[in-house]
């Protein structure tokens, strides 16, 4: 079983967060060279699974929506997980409506689907989609091996979204999309969204060298015209160098574009905390 997914998104189960998941998948599909039809299948099926969590998992309350993506040897596996009552498969229903319709769509579009109820509650929908031949991304595991919860589950909620990415071309394709989608939600102007993309590019480009362990973790909290990022854990000393990263002082992207930045010690490492504000045109 693969240690951890290539991508993990942990989001509050709000309808608008499904867009964030779709942006991540579209970025992934680009790197994996899926054609428009396969991309549409992937997006549609995962959207159905996410919508189920949004609408049914927590009985109207807010709760976490977790999406793990594993790039396997010849398939993409996507696990959509909740910690609530999860998918209600209509028992003995003679008609497919609501959640049942979503399940039927997933069943028709994914190459393979499994439903699981982990011991700690909730529901997991595991879907596999065939990869086109010749994709060169290093797989994290064998086909059929998409795992259970790959790490500690973040229970802290509010408007915080957590993205974890294994350092790879995926990070570069996915992080800018995810952060722009969140900046758009925070009512950033197009100018400022572009700045956020530049910051995301720096973080993704430095993921392989700068980060502790095997993944880049970015926590994002949004408020109107306000985006707070927590990047870490980093190795001690890396936060500072990230801030001025990109061409030796010529364009210290993060240093110039973030409105506030701070390196906070966490355990044996540190966390880079950034705030981007859209101040113009208030």
């Amino acid at each position, binding site marked *: 079983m693969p240690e951890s997914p290539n991508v993990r998104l942990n989001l509050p189960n709000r309808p608008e967060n499904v867009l964030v998941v779709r942006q991540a998948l579209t970025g992934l599909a680009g790197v994996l060279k899926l054609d428009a039809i396969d991309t549409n299948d992937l997006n549609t099926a995962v959207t159905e699974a996410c919508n189920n969590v949004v609408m049914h998992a927590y009985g109207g309350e807010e709760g976490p929506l977790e999406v793990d993506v594993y790039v396997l040897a010849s398939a993409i596996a996507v696990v959509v997980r909740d910690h609530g009552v999860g998918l209600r498969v209509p028992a003995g229903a003679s008609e497919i409506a609501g959640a049942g319709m979503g399940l039927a769509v997933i069943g*028709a579009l994914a190459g393979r689907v499994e439903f699981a109820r982990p011991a700690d509650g909730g529901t997991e929908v595991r879907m596999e989609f065939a990869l086109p031949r010749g994709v060169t991304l290093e797989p994290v595991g064998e086909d059929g091996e998409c795992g259970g919860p790959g790490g500690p589950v973040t229970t802290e909620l509010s408007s915080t979204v957590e993205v974890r990415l294994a350092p790879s071309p995926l990070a570069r394709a996915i992080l800018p999309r995810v952060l722009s989608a969140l900046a758009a939600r925070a009512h950033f102007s197009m100018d400022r969204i572009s700045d956020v*993309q530049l910051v995301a590019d720096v973080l993704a480009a430095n993921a392989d060298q700068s980060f502790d362990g095997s993944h880049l973790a970015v926590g994002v909290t949004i408020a109107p015209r306000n985006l707070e990022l927590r990047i870490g854990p980093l190795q001690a000393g890396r936060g500072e160098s990230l801030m001025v*990263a990109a061409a030796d*002082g*010529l364009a210290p992207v993060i240093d110039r574009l973030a409105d506030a930045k701070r390196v906070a010690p966490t355990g044996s490492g540190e966390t880079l905390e950034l705030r981007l504000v859209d101040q113009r045109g208030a």
Partner: protein
Amino acid sequence: MPTVAANPPSTRGTTPAKADDSRTLFRRWQRDRDAGAREALVRQYAPLARGLARRYGRSSEPFEDLVQVASLGLLKALDRYDVDRGHPFASFAVPTILGEMRRYFRDSGWAVHVPRGAQERALKVRDAQERLSNERGRAPTVNQLAEYLEFDIEEVVDALQAIQAYDTLSLDAPRPRADGELVAYGDTVGHDDERYELVELDATVTAVLGHIQPRERDILRMRFVEDLTQTEIAERVGISQMQVSRLLRRTLEQLRTLAHAS
């Protein structure tokens, strides 16, 4: 799922429970070729076909074409469904209808048209953004663009990414300014600006900079030294903000590559 809206004329006045009703209708269509029964089934399941078209074809246009394809899939499912096997019709119909839409996408070259549609939307977003920036004196938000263009938020967010990929588009062409004058790059950026060249740069950086086009260098300077917004830079250089964004991303990527190599 709505029930049959009204009893079709041929239902002999009985109103049995819905499942039985459907079963009867299937028998009457499949065995007796009763067109009225088929029509009643189509009416009953049309929302299913339409719902699937909406779920599967969000970026497909025109939407009504796809509904037609989904309806064709529904007709096939009505013919092939085996009522005696006891599975609900919908669980049989969903894959059949999705399969029909998928085949349509493949046969109609949809996979080629979709990127083109995205490209057209990206250009519309770019143009709308310039118009709104000029009118309001500040860059619009995604919501404002979506509202103005009647796109959904996702389409605008996609456009932000899509524009980055379009090297071949005529994004570099001179653009008319607000006063209608056509300006090409070079008219707007004075050569005196060379004096601005970052004074305190060391030899490595100077060497790296040698690989960067003068215009890109100017744009970097305007953003990171003069702290102009991308919209302000766009106005000065005579290109769109989205292109400024694209050039900045590309140039910074280039700088990263050069810095790693040196």
